[in-house]
Every structure is written in C-alpha cells, then in structure tokens.
C-alpha cells in the first residue's frame, strides 16, 4: 500500500478467514495492541523488533469475526502525546493537509481511515487518543465505557483510564467494529459483561442534551465553538432538547489526569529493561547501569518526561500530595458527570478546542500539549463513553462534535451520533 501519510509502522497483512461479520474487511491495528507474530513497538525504539507471542483479546475477536489484519499504525510513543509527533518513527500526516498533525495518539489509525487506506481501525483512548485524531482527521471515533472492551494485550500506558476502541469513516462502521470487540474477557479483571449487538438506528428525538459551560470556555477556538454550536442546533432540529449544565470539578481534570497517568506510566514502563525483550543491555555491567543506558537510548523525550514526572509524584513524601489527591479529584469529576447525566441523556461539546495544528506547533511546550486534552480527559476520568463525529470545518480543517453518554450507554450514544451523521 502507498503509505503517503506515514500512517503505518508495519504493513504486514494477515488475510481473514471464515464468514463472520467482518469477513472481507481490512482492519488496521494501533501499534500498542499486541499482535501474535507481528512486530509491536508502541512507536518506541525500546520495543523495536519485539514480536509478541500472543494476540490481544480484541485482535482475537477481530480474527474470529473474519477480519483481515491490515498493518500496525503509527502513534505517539506509548500513547503519550496528542499529535502523533512523539513517534520514534516520524509523525503521521493529516490527509486533509499534510503540513498538519493527525492528532494523537491514535494518529496512524485515523490517517489510515481518513486517507481511505482502510475502512476501519482500532485505536486506544487514554485521555482522548481516539477522539482527538478522529476529530482532526474528520472521521468517527468511539471511546468505550471503561471495562466494556478487554485491555488484555493493550500495552499499558495508564491502566485506569484507557480503552481500545473503533475508528471508522462513519457511525455504522464504528458500531459494527464495536460490536465485535465489546464484551467480557476473563483475562482482564476490570472487564465487565456488556456486549453490544451492533444494531444501530438513528435516534435522537426527545433526548435531553446537556451543554457543559466549561466546554465552551477560555482556550476554545471561536470558529470551532461556533461550528459545534451549529451542530447542537441541528440536534435540536432533530427533536432533542439542549440545556446548559456545569461540571464545576473540571478544573481538577487535567492535573488529576496527568498525575495519575504519569504515576501509572512510570510503573508500567519500568519493565522495559532489555532483558526479556527490547534492545540488548550490556550484560557485564551492574544491572542498574545496564538498564539506565538501555532506557536512556530507548525512550523518547516525552516518555522520559512522563516517567520522571510519575516517579517523582510517587516518591517518598509526595504520594499523598499528588496521587491520593488526584484519586479524590477523579471521584469528584465522576460525580459531576453522573449528576449531569441523570437529567441529561448526553452531554455535547467540541472534541478538541482547536483544529489540527501545524507539525511542530505544539511540541515545544509540553504543558501546552497537555492542555490540548482539556475537553477529552474528563470522559476518561469519569469512565463514561464518548464519540467524536465530524461536524464541518473551521479554518479549512475538520471539527469534531463530542457526544458523551451514560456509563455503558454506547447503544443510545451511537444511535444519537447516527441521527446527527445522517442529518448533515
């Protein structure tokens, strides 16, 4: 295939077998999802050459449904980033404008779909990593409820936030792919038994849609906000009622997210020492010295930064100040969402505060990069499902409408997204 968007890290194809519902469909897989006998790198030099001896549960389900596995997609190293520029193997390029980023971290999956290379792809969403590139590349991406899709085989970045989820050009394909991967897996202790039947029908009439004030606050581009307001008006025309709501604890969202995800990441990524997989350490050095060299050479800047931040936040004397506080902040944020979603069927807002930036624009300042996630991370904190659907363009680039639903409410969320998609 002609990978002009640097969407792929590996273009190995495994033809599908059988007559399942994905028979004849090629599905690309984000490179942090383990594929048996196919190199899986997380876009990191530290996993270059690593061949998993097993398939992630989601990949097993795809194969059982007859899908062809169509390559491993580019991403921010270990999922750490919002643009796919933090790939050790070069950034993915936005098919709408190749001087711009795809968004991230599932940027390769989004570019592959938006560029027409495949119709569906799997991504993973820790703090927006499916929805962000879906929005910036003008496609549909679903972050499932926490626990609805098995994480077994997903190379962990921040365990308590992330989910594997589908990206596709339209809502029906997203629903189809989701129906294959949703359901209980006894190999994942946080997995729940909530399969999805894939029966998606346009349905928005009579629903109440909450518009969180905080989703149109400072930092949200005026043209992006206007496009999303238009989309909400469209939902009202389709028979939904829009009401303003507030999520007062959202001010804690980014700190709580970044504290927790860096803590978890620092621990998750400590296993990359070169012994069982990865670049060979110098065997006759004392182990700390050998590991230090392997890890210095193998990890990129952003990964190092997050490992160090997490190590710091967990270190003696700081655990109570950072990790413990962050968990209580999560609980407050989750409660805000739960109470808003008691009266509302969905919440709606922009997926991203801006359109896709130029390559290099966000990478100089990590804090600026973190702040780009402000509208996506609250959903991961609350554990609820959210979908990004295209709602037009601003500054000539795609804008995503984010619909957020009740815990395990993907059915009605997909139905609402389909109603919107069919109307525009």
């Amino acid at each position, binding site marked *: 295939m002609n990978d002009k968007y640097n969407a792929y890290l590996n273009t190995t194809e495994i033809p599908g077998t059988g007559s399942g519902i994905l028979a004849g469909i090629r599905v690309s897989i984000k490179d942090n999802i383990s594929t048996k006998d196919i190199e899986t790198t997380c876009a990191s030099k530290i996993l270059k050459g690593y061949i998993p001896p097993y398939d992630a549960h989601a990949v097993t389900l795809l194969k059982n449904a007859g899908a062809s596995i169509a390559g491993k997609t580019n991403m921010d190293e270990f999922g750490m980033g919002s643009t796919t520029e933090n790939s050790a193997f070069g950034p993915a390029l936005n098919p709408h404008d190749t001087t711009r980023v795809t968004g991230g971290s599932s940027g390769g999956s989004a570019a592959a779909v938006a560029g027409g290379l495949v119709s569906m792809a799997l991504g993973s969403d820790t703090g927006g990593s499916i929805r962000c590139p879906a929005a910036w590349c003008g496609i549909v991406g679903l972050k499932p409820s926490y626990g609805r899709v098995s994480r077994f085989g997903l190379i962990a970045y921040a365990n308590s936030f992330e989910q594997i989820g589908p990206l596709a050009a339209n809502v029906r394909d997203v629903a189809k792919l989701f129906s294959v991967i949703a359901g209980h897996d006894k190999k994942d202790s946080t997995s729940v038994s909530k399969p999805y039947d894939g029966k998606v029908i346009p349905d928005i009439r009579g629903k109440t849609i909450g518009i969180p004030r905080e989703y149109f606050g400072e930092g949200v581009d005026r043209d992006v906000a206007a496009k999303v307001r238009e989309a909400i008006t469209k939902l009202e025309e389709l028979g939904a009622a829009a009401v303003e709501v507030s999520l007062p604890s959202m001010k804690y969202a980014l700190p*709580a997210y970044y504290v927790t995800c860096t803590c978890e990441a620092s621990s998750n990524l400590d296993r990359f020492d070169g012994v069982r997989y990865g670049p060979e350490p110098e065997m006759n050095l004392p182990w700390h010295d050998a590991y230090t060299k392997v890890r210095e050479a193998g990890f990129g800047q952003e990964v190092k930064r997050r490992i160090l931040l997490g190590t710091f936040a967990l270190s003696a004397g700081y655990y109570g100040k950072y990790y413990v506080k962050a968990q209580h902040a999560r609980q407050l944020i989750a409660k805000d969402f739960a109470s808003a979603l008691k009266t509302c069927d969905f919440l709606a807002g922009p997926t991203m505060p801006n359109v896709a930036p130029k390559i290099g624009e966000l990478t100089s300042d990590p804090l600026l990069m973190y702040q780009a996630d402000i509208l996506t991370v609250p959903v991961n904190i609350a554990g609820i499902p959210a979908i990004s659907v295209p709602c037009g363009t601003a500054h000539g680039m795609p804008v995503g409408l984010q619909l957020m639903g009740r815990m395990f409410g993907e059915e009605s969320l997909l139905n609402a997204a389909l109603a919107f998609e069919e109307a525009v």
Partner: protein
Amino acid sequence: MVKESDVLHIAELADIGISSSELGKFTEQFNAILEYFDILDTLEVTGPLERPLVNIFREDEVTPCISQEDALRNSHNPEDGYIRAPKVV
C-alpha cells in the same frame, strides 16, 4: 521548587539516563507542570473512594503455558533455556 539535583535523583530511581542538556530543560518543565498540579492542594480529601468492582477472581485451574521457544524469543543469547541478564553481583 524542584532542583536539578532532585531531577537527577528521580532519574536514578527510574533507571533513566539523562544528558546534562536535558537536565536543565526537564527541571524547568517540571516546575511549570508541577505548579499546574498545585490546584489539587485546594482539594479536601473526604470519605473513602468508591469501588465499581470488587472481588474479581479466577478459579485455581491450570492453563497451558507458552513454549520455551516463545518465552526466549525476544531475549538476547539465552543459555540452556535461561534468559540472560546483566550482572547482579
């Protein structure tokens, strides 16, 4: 305020080498990011955390292992079925 010596200590804990050029930059970025985290200090810690899931177990049943070949496949110069690692003595 995080000092360069703090960042070096953390890097040592994390077994990550950082160059002297990275050290200054990381220290500066750390301080900016940690300042941004300070809002968590205003939060009152109240009550226990809610637990969506409790008591998830599996039965004590033996399932197949992977082959020794697969276990060693990604390691370097395994010897007699053992995986080679740096020295510890």
